[in-house]
């Protein structure tokens, strides 16, 4: 082949390659999840949800844009999350960041992303401070502490006729905010909080706490804000101390959306009578929920029931895809489109962001009570 022809072919090939590269339009999504450490089950479930959504929603370009995800381990820790977000901003240059799950870590990354003008889409933290601190680039689809605790207080006082409560919560921003979110309205309605008992995440044996509660006299409700593992042990200790219904006592343990599906089976009989609000209910009849459950089972196994963590993570991709569909092409337009998200149907209900970036639509949040056979009974309370 003549050198001139060879050069021409090479130049042509290079031009095609360059043009393909230039035309490949990508929305980069940084995902900060706890992949190591005690909170890593959040990361595992979150990743399952995101990967399923990427397979389904993002398999074809949306508006000519392909979604690309990069995971970083933020370990549920403010320090590691800070390092991870700086790394992802520097190296991956995301248009949006999804995460973190833990409130303390989310609070650490929010100001960094706000300063970098990269939207943060949160699907697992409850602390009020996240959307109450004036950040312009923070959005949250997960109900905040007040949105979760206020209905609990209302139902405790008005429906269950509870007049005394002992609030149990982990010693974190999330736990404290949820506890305050229950206490204020409950006391304002005329209820009395006999004790607010906090505990760190390394407490394993709850017998002493259950004994203390048993010594406090008549307790009507026990709102509990802790991770699943500790809540299971707490419920069992409360049953042994004959405080809660599951152990022959009278108090009703109450919980929030924190608790994944499956808690009741793990806690066993101790969970009988447990009342909680749920947002994602795998048995909900909505077509979107059932199609998600079906796809989840097909990918991860028929015996695996998706939790709210799977569902919320899945929904983050739906929310981003929707913003891209409505014209988001970079961080700024992403922020703009997200802020205008309205009545978007996802597996965990509907999304409408308020001026602070908080999802204000709680239409599917409902109460369930654990029955003797450990199944859920849907309640009509709101």
């Amino acid at each position: 082949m003549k050198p001139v022809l060879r050069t021409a072919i090479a130049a042509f090939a290079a031009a095609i390659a360059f043009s393909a590269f230039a035309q490949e339009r990508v929305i980069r999504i940084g995902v900060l999840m706890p992949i190591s450490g005690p909170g890593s089950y959040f990361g595992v479930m979150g990743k399952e949800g995101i990967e399923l959504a990427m397979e389904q929603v993002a398999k074809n370009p949306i508006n000519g844009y392909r979604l690309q995800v990069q995971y970083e381990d933020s370990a549920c820790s403010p320090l590691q999350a800070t390092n991870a977000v700086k790394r992802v901003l520097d190296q991956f240059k995301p248009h949006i960041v999804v995460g973190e799950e833990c409130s303390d870590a989310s609070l650490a990354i929010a100001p960094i992303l706000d300063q970098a003008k990269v939207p943060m889409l949160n699907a697992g933290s409850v602390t009020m401070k996240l959307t109450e601190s004036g950040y312009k680039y923070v959005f949250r689809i997960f109900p905040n502490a007040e949105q979760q605790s206020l209905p609990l207080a209302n139902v405790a006082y008005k429906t269950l006729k509870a007049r005394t409560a002992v609030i149990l919560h982990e010693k974190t921003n999330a736990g404290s905010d949820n506890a305050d979110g229950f206490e204020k309205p409950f006391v304002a309605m005329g209820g009395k909080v006999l004790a607010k008992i906090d505990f760190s995440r390394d407490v394993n044996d709850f017998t002493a706490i259950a004994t203390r509660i048993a010594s406090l006299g008549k307790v009507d409700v026990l709102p509990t804000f802790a991770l699943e593992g500790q809540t299971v042990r707490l419920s069992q200790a409360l049953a042994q101390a004959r405080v809660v219904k599951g152990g022959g006592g009278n108090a009703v343990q109450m919980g929030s959306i924190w608790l994944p599906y499956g808690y009741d089976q793990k806690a066993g009989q101790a969970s009988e009578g447990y009342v909680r609000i749920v947002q994602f209910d795998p048995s909900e009849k909505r077509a979107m929920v059932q199609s998600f459950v079906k796809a989840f089972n097909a990918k991860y196994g028929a015996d695996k029931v998706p939790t709210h963590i799977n569902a919320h993570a899945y929904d983050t991709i739906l929310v981003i895809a929707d913003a891209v569909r409505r014209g988001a092409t970079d961080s700024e337009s992403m922020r703009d489109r997200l802020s205008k998200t309205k009545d978007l149907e996802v597996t965990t209900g509907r999304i409408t962001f308020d001026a602070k970036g908080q999802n204000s639509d709680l239409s599917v949040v409902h109460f369930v009570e654990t029955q003797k056979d450990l199944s859920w009974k849907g309640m009509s309370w709101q």
Partner: protein
Amino acid sequence: MSDLAALVVQQSVNGVYLGCLYVMVALGLTLIYGVLNQINFAHADFVTVGAFAAFFTATRFATRVLGLPDAGAYLLSLIVALGVGALLGLAVNAAVFAPLRRGDELRPLIATIGVSVLLENFQLWLFGPIPYQFDSPFSRETIRIGRIFFTAQSVLVVAVSAASIAALYAFMRFTFLGKALRAVAQDRETAGLMGINPNLLIALTIVIASALAGMAGALLGPVLVLTPFAGATVIVKAFAIVIIGGFGNMQGTILAGILVGIIEAFTVQYLGSGLIDLVVFVLLLVMLVLRPTGLIAERKEENV
């Protein structure tokens, strides 16, 4: 019994139970320090390995393969965890600790951190991060005497702890190997000159300590939120107990463990559970200032 008396007795019972769990974890730590003058940062992970070994024995092998009833399966799992702990100790000593002991003292210490990270991540890969639900059949049985309640699991924990302590004490006091261990603890070189093989006895110490950690894991399994990081939730407290009791002092560790358990229970009752760590670590600082050798006055030759 008055309300106050019942409450005091109940919290004391809770505290002794918790203390026994701490003692089971702390014993191995103090044993290794007593003989090797070395802190084992991987001890928490040995506890976790024991907990997982017990979990899979009790819920899979013993019930599904051997067809044992739940109680028998759990008791078997204690023995399996003990054995798995011992084997792990033997393997880690042969592969990591023994070769590094020839250098300076810092290397084995750093190696224990390396082993800890390795074991934690290996378990994370093997078992995943989602908590396992490990319920002992004895936890479901609540015993009530008057107004006092405790589970059969608490009785088992106290009984196994007492038996382990007695066996360890008898081994140290009355057997040749135990006496040789004490000799190595006092003066490794002189013990070597007397015909004792220090390396063999060091290996034995690690095996015993690891076996105790494995057994502690099996007892703690139904209490812990069982994940590859489970042991880490008790190890800081165990270190505090070892320091309060006097590093390397077995009697001191036992006393400190029970004391910390009881103090924790009463802190929960009267000060609040959020202050547990504060109270325990203030106690630790007070001990370091007032009695740096630990609760029981240390006599070097009585260590281990």
